[in-house]
């Protein structure tokens, strides 16, 4: 239980920080696309008998970079490329599942995850990922804000926009891979988008926006676990529901004020 709460908090902080950039860069659908592609990653791990966590991380990183490469190299809008990639990966993943004998029982755990099954290795990976993310932010926060706001201004200033974008995608893909184990493919995007969307409604400045999104993510992790334990609900969906209620409360508060 303690591992699960700590896992929820770490995932909430990571989701809040990275999700903030995700929604401002208009890539909200990206989390969904990479999350759903993870089904194909899980199938590959099972078919090739590879370790699930590492295969999932490797697959989501490769898939995420591939999608961003396609967005950069085609004149299509990012939503179009994301939809094409999403459909393709689900089709391949579903076909892959049909080849797995005696493994289909795990489908539910991939779809909905199990935060109580978070291992010590997962926690260490999450801590490492959070440390790397924070260092990345401290080193390059003004550059990240500028390239999020306007990539031309960033390029003129000499900021390596493409390098920063690709590194962000790597961090995001690893976060998605680890979040899937806790809340599943279907709810992974909630961790990224909902706390950041709530923070965006109430914050005027950038650093408070990041801190609020991370704080809301962490708080909903703890609250969700409490709700889940108190009234015996599945933990992942409980966390996302707490995030949703938080978002609705913010919307109401904003309308009133």
């Amino acid at each position: 239980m303690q591992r699960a709460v700590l896992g929820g908090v770490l995932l909430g902080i990571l989701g809040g920080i990275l999700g903030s950039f995700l929604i401002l860069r208009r890539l909200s659908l990206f989390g969904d696309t990479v999350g759903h592609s993870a089904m194909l990653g899980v199938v590959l791990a099972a078919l090739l008998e590879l370790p699930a966590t590492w295969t999932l991380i490797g697959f989501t990183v490769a898939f995420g970079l591939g999608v961003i490469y396609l967005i950069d190299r085609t004149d299509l809008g990012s939503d179009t490329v994301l939809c094409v990639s999403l459909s393709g990966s689900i089709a391949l993943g579903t076909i892959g599942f049909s080849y797995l004998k005696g493994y289909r029982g795990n489908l539910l755990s991939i779809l909905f995850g199990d935060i109580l099954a978070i291992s010590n290795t997962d926690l260490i990976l999450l801590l490492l990922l959070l440390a790397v993310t924070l260092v990345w932010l401290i080193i390059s926060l003004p550059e990240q804000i500028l390239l999020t706001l306007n990539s031309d201004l960033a390029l003129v200033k000499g900021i390596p926009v493409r390098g920063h974008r690709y590194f962000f995608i790597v961090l995001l893909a690893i976060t998605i891979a680890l979040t899937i184990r806790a809340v599943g493919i279907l709810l992974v995007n909630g961790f990224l988008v909902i706390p950041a969307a709530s923070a965006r409604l109430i914050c005027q400045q950038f650093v408070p926006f990041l801190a609020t999104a991370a704080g809301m993510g962490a708080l909903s992790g703890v609250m969700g676990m409490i709700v889940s334990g108190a009234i015996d609900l599945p933990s992942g969906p409980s966390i996302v529901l707490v995030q949703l209620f938080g978002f609705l409360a913010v919307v109401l508060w904003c309308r009133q004020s």
Partner: protein
Amino acid sequence: MHQNLSVTQPIVTVRNLSVMRGEYLAVDNVSFELLPGTHTAIIGPNGAGKSTLIKSILGLLEARAGEISLFNCTGKQSKRFKQEIGYIPQKFSFERTFPLTVSELVGLGLNSKQWWYSSKQKREKIYQALEQVHLTKQAQQKIGTLSGGELKRVLLAYCLVVPRRLLVLDEALAGVDATGEMEFAALLHNLKQEQNWTILEVSHDLDLVSKYCDSVICMNRRLLNQGLPSTTLTPENLLHIYGSLVSPTCHHHEPSQLPESF
């Protein structure tokens, strides 16, 4: 970091530059030079390749042929001078709820080390830049609440927050009201006169071009004309460029006669 260039050494040299936009040759074999401390306007009809030309100079678009030299350096060597270039784009779109205040945006113009300055030092630099564009009252306002004209002035403050040697503006005055337009132009003039900034701007305002610019580049994919406003902005030339009669108001007074507030 500062490479001293002699007064006559060009800040920007463009030689036989051609740039494609997709299948379309947007800039065709254009050559010119910008000397330090000069204000040059690029004029021409819509679709003439003006924005393409400056984006190529700034390294935002790749050239198909030709050479661009910035601060006497070409290619990757010129990248080390990026911090000395200010740029105001033609379009600056972002979501209205973007959580960024005016002073935060201006602060992004500082280099990375300066960004982590103690807040007082940083605030002073930002305040001074905002003061120059008369927007100190809006410092804590969210950028999404600004009008188009105010946003252009904030972007100018973003460029002013550190000393630059080259300022590139792509229709920076579009959306700015008449008073703001004059103030903006006068401020650019001061930067040129007092701080020796080199200014390159795309403009459709021939009145202001004739009043404030030292040199005019007329183009329609190709270079049509280049020279002093008095020799390039003639009715014959403008008829040739725009295909109809256009004439700027003549400004006989000296550019140094600025509004009192400046």
